[in-house]
């Protein structure tokens, strides 16, 4: 009863859980336009993930697995389902997640048959694969109810059903390391545990065997996604879009969300997107504000592009942005390769390359 009264008071006064606030982009997250200056290596139909073995770059583009040599892309093979995650393995192997429900391990990218297939019935939205320190695979499963491409619904339903699995291709076993996560999307080995992105809770958590997740970085102004190791120590963390007060407000309005999801096409929901500004039907694109007696068109930002460089403790050092007026939005993967950072901007469907030489020094000054 007291909780109900408190909840009502909080909603009335805009406090507690009903506080509609968003952290600012400042400090190491101070905006710039670095991602807009990145070179476009390739434009794809629906790039989903990247992986590298330091000599070749593998790109998951829908059902196709591409290999990029220089600026030339070649199709290595295709699958019966869209690829939702990629990971290179020691010894030239490759692991692919298909449709979010199955993980196949190949001895090499061209191998006809997978050496191991993990198709646990619980798999629903496997969206990232990473190598653990014992060479087993770590898979993050965003949601137990919504598919890989239906992540916006998972956010609007306030689901907290993300899971982390260890896939041991030695004994072909699947072990659940964590559950109840707010859309687990990306993992990376960190000591004897794993750093895991929780997109809907805007944080990074350290998942260790036999221990409850420990918060490493919280209150991010973005929805974090995949992680990869940086060659000079630390990590690259991508974020597929930024939080806005509008979406935070909608997340606190269950009736509105229910009707919106029932009556409006998903691409026009008030929800984060990987790209925006393509249709006047997008929510609020027809909005206006009146300033000094003059009506001006106005629309809140819906998409954003961001990569955060983290130190070895998971704390931000600097960040690369594509701001609201940019194009390279919806960054879902970033890997280092040959002194460059290669990224996927899923919004425009681009694979981007950004030279790393001098970048850290530039942000230090």
């Amino acid at each position, binding site marked *: 009863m007291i909780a109900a009264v408190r909840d009502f008071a909080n909603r009335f006064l805009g406090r507690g859980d009903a506080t509609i606030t968003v*952290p600012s982009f400042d400090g190491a997250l101070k905006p710039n336009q670095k991602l807009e200056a990145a070179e476009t290596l390739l434009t794809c139909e629906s790039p989903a993930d990247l992986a590298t073995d330091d000599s070749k770059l593998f790109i998951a583009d829908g059902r196709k697995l591409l290999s990029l040599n220089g600026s030339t892309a070649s199709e290595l093979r295709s699958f019966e389902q869209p690829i939702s995650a990629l990971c290179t393995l020691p010894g030239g192997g490759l692991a692919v997640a298909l449709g979010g429900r199955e993980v196949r391990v190949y001895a090499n990218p061209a191998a006809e048959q997978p050496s191991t297939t993990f198709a646990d019935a619980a798999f629903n939205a496997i969206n990232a694969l990473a190598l653990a320190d014992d060479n087993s695979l770590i898979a993050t499963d965003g949601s137990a109810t919504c598919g890989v491409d239906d992540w916006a619904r998972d956010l609007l339903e306030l689901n907290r059903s993300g899971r982390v699995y260890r896939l041991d291709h030695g004994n072909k076993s699947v072990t659940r390391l964590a559950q109840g996560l707010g859309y687990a999307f990306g993992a990376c080995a960190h000591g004897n545990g794993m750093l895991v992105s929780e997109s809907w809770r805007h944080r990074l958590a350290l998942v260790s065997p036999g221990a409850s997740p420990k918060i490493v970085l919280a209150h991010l102004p973005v929805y974090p996604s995949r992680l990869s190791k940086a060659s000079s120590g630390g990590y690259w963390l991508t974020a597929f879009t930024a939080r806005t007060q509008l979406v935070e407000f909608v997340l606190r309005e269950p009736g509105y969300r229910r009707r919106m999801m029932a009556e409006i096409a998903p691409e026009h929901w008030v929800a984060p997107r990987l790209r925006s500004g393509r249709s006047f039907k997008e929510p609020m694109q027809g909005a206006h504000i009146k300033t000094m007696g003059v009506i001006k068109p106005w629309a809140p930002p819906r998409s954003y592009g961001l990569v955060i460089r983290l130190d070895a403790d998971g704390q931000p050092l600097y960040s690369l942005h594509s701001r609201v007026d940019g194009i390279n939005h919806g960054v879902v993967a970033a890997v280092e390769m040959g002194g460059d950072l290669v990224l996927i901007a899923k919004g425009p469907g681009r694979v981007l390359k950004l030279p790393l030489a001098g970048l850290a020094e530039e942000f230090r000054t």
Partner: protein
Amino acid sequence: MSDIALSLRKATKLYAGVPAIDGVDFDLRRGEIHALVGENGAGKSTLTKVMAGVVALTSGTMTVDGTEVAPKTPLEARNLGIAMVFQENSLVPTMTVAQNLFLGQEKFYNRLRGIYIAAQQFLQSLNFDVTPTATVSGLGAAKKQMVEIARAVLHRAKVIIFDEPTASLTPEEKKYFFDLVRDLKKRGVSIVFISHALEEALLLADRITVLRDGKHVVTDDVAKFDRAAIVQAMVGRDLSNTLYGARKSSVRPAGARVLTVQNLKMAPMVKNNSLSVFSGQITGVFGLVGAGRTETFKIVAGVLKRDFFHGGEILLHDQPVRYRVPAPAVKAGIAYVTEDRKVEGFFETSSIARNIYLGLLSKFPKGRMMLSRRETDAVGKSWIERLKVRAISDDGKVVELSGGNQQKVVIAKSLVQEPDLIIFDEPTRGVDVGAIVEIHELINRLADEGKAVVVISSYLPEIMALSDRILVSRQGKVVEEFSALEATEEKIMYAAIH
């Protein structure tokens, strides 16, 4: 008859030996609108106060219509035809508009109806839509401004001085105000107005005078200026470099995030303000007066309260906090060093040691009833030595100290709380040069020790000299962030104004 309505020659005003204006020459032509611009502390208000008889010149001369004058009171200035409209208006809120208009001109027997009729006729002649019978407290800012102006015109002012006239006006009210000023100009009234909004100066004025560090920099026709030229004239200073040293060549890296302010609101001063403060760094917060800097951090420290409805969120070490009074904030490790030390900083007739020990009272253990005199003296003595407070004795009263040493006592009172987050609000205001250097060394030392330090200052050289990162505040929120290495005075000032 000369074209010059009012002029000042070599005008100097010293406050406790420190020049607020220094050898300023100023001419105001008949029927012109003359804008005075400059940073906080540039001497704009002092110059206008001299004209309006609020303060007297230490040296120099003032002439009105070619006659040398020295008004010692506002009444004397008014008799010379000079009226000043203050930023915080000087109307009596409980009186009616008409009573305010005729205040000071009352006869032995006043017929209220007659006053109202006269006021009505006069206001109509000015085309001012104000009801003479309305109580002033019920009027909006623009209407109050109108009454002030009407009073100045009623007193047959030939010169009207406006101090930040548009600060509290809405855009529509501003437009109306500009029309009023232009109308006054047509009547031959000379106008001086102070404004931080440069576009207003460029839009309204015939000539602009820029003051810096109490000295005249330039006066010219408005056509000769653009925004960049005014900003350059406002901030280009040599004097500050000698005091605050060269530019920073390196900055401290950010540590953990200590404070996060998200969409904080306290109408009308703080509007949807968001910022972060990190440990091991000095975060400088710059802004012009009224930018909401002090209010934001007073809310953080529990001195002020945020809006009751949807007031935003404050996170200390990533945990939401809300302090209604300062004591729990102090316990949580937040220290706020006030900008107004005389009112909020100390008990001036208490001893230095007692004032320093005051800082510990919020952490006083429960159940303990008595203060230990020995402990108070020991704590006081230790901090007097650490901060090099120059006093005749440890028992000396704070009122006997110089401004710089008083400030050190206020700082010691905060540091004794062993805070993680220290907010210095104008830490060197009214402090002598020697103490400025010592206070700056102390602030740097705190950041080196890993504390999260915030320095709020209206003085650009101080911000540039101290900060590792600089947040610029404008109209109630942080609008720009600079690394100390990329910041220039022009960039900061541009962000603070536009």
